[in-house]
């Protein structure tokens, strides 16, 4: 719950968080080390100084840490935990559904844990989807198309194998497909961050919601074109939002652009925890205004009502969360600070 300076309570559903173990003990090789190092560079580059973490804490944090950062110090009412396996880089996976679910069990009313699968695993991917539905009753998945899998260094959402998996997701009611376009290294002849496969998949699977994390960054322009044509494509603000601190004018231009092309009903807040913590992001976002010249040029506004949608209502809608009922439930189970 974020409380505005005027005392209004804003429901916050953080659409993109992680419970990872990127520690050296879990790294299989140099790629595992470089993966968490890259995340850490995002953290150190875009966080306000007072919110910087030491490397060891960033590599692996505890169940108490995540709860405190998101719900005690942070304004989140709920958080979606994404699964990113990276089994070629990490012994026990980078952020596995089993480990995240065990953590979330302590406060099930606050977490939605999403699963993940790799379509290149063929039959095993289908089995994995069944297993995640039966064991964890997932309603969403996170797809990382840049994941390495043996000789393969990336895949596309419109690969035939992926379509078989999405058909099964649709059948089982796994409606929310979060997509992260990392660099798909091979084939080298393609744009490593190409987002056009989202266009095909979203057209062919109208029942599913396609949430493109980081708004397709570094291909936000291409993403805007796609999102404007597809009713079931959403943009997650992770990575774009932290610019609000270091480069507020860039942020203003990007959010104006996203409001114009993608629209206020299809933009989702995500802190990308633990790369960033939600407290400062939500506070700055609530207090942010698009400068007059940009707002005028683009013909968009970032009103309180729009901010409220972005911070929680839009995600609540696609995850079928009754916000009023949820608020009542959470009021009966206020955040607990563990004795230390």
């Amino acid at each position, binding site marked *: 719950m974020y409380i505005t300076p005027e005392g209004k309570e804003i429901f916050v559903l953080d659409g993109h968080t992680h419970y990872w173990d990127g520690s050296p003990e879990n790294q299989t090789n140099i*790629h595992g080390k470089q993966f968490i*190092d890259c995340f850490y560079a995002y953290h150190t580059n875009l966080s306000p100084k007072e919110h910087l973490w*030491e490397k060891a804490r960033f590599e692996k944090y505890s169940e108490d840490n995540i709860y405190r950062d998101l719900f005690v110090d942070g304004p989140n009412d709920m958080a979606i935990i994404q699964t990113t396996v990276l089994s070629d880089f990490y012994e026990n996976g980078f952020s596995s559904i089993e480990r995240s679910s065990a953590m979330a069990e302590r406060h099930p009313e606050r977490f939605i844990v999403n699963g993940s699968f790799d379509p290149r695993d063929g039959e095993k991917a289908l089995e994995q989807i069944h297993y995640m539905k039966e064991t964890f009753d997932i309603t969403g998945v996170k797809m990382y198309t840049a994941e390495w899998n043996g000789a393969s260094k990336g895949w596309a959402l419109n690969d035939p194998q992926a379509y078989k998996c999405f058909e099964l997701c649709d059948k089982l009611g796994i409606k929310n497909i979060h997509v992260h376009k990392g660099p798909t290294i091979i084939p080298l002849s393609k744009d490593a961050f190409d987002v056009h496969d989202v266009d095909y998949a979203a057209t062919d699977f109208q029942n599913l919601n396609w949430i493109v994390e980081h708004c397709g960054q*570094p291909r*936000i322009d291409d993403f805007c074109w796609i999102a404007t044509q597809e009713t079931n494509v959403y943009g997650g603000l992770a990575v774009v939002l932290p610019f609000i601190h270091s480069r507020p004018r860039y942020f203003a*231009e990007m959010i104006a652009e996203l409001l114009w092309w993608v629209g206020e009903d299809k933009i989702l807040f995500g802190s990308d925890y633990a790369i960033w913590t939600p407290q400062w992001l939500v506070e700055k976002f609530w207090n942010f205004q698009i400068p007059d010249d940009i707002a005028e040029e683009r013909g968009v506004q970032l009103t309180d009502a729009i901010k409220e949608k972005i911070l929680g209502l839009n995600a609540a809608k696609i995850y079928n969360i009754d916000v009023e009922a949820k608020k009542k439930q959470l009021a009966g189970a206020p955040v607990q600070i563990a004795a230390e």
Partner: protein
Amino acid sequence: MFVAQLMAERELEVWDCLAAVSDPELDEPITDLNFVEAVSVNDDHTVRVEFRLPTYWCSPNFAFLMAFGIRNAVMALPWVRAMTVELKDHCFGDEVNDGVNSGRPFHQIFAENCDGAVLDDVVEKFMAKAFDRRQEAMLLALKAKDRPIAEIVSMTVGALKKTHFTGEEAFRQLPRYLDILAAKGLALTDRDPAFPTWQGGRISPEALGPHLRRLRSTRLTMEFNGALCRGLAQSRYKEVEIGIDGPTLVDFIAGRVPPREAPEPGI
């Protein structure tokens, strides 16, 4: 003394020529982006250039293009006998370095690394984006000079060249815009229209608004990515230390940068 001065001058010459190599994704010189880390010139007229991208995961195909861009720019200097390019700390670094230093042409090396495929479509896609970004700077500068829309869309290259621009961005982009018009063959003489589309079409006065909206989206993305890449390049290998005055960023000590020959089980 004289030799030292000559070497220093040659190093500067190398740095200058590297400014002509752009990151294809951002359409900015790699020297402005601080990607080039070291240049050394030896007595035997050989040159070594080391470059590092903002992350280990930056697009390898663009890393290839930049590595070959560096090679071509440096080898064009009349006194250079041979050169070595080294891309550091990159997931595809060995392949890029072996390829660029083999002395064989780009298309051959690139094809060897991806079952014969070529990069033409991707290069074309990013040239189109670079074109859009440069063209927008010119169009906005003309609009800022209160030129009528009908006049802007029908302007010739000759008239554009004669226009006096004072804004920093328009001043910087004018030669870059003229370069890309010529490179794509969109304008061959001063009588040709200055503002064709990338496909060679004309922009009607009514279409200028929507056209500019699209260019704006491309430019904002490139600027946003440029800001992110600069920031990541700067924070790579820095760590946080929390002292009595709170957190600060400190540089990694040399030995902690990951060794390239680290074990890679299973890969």
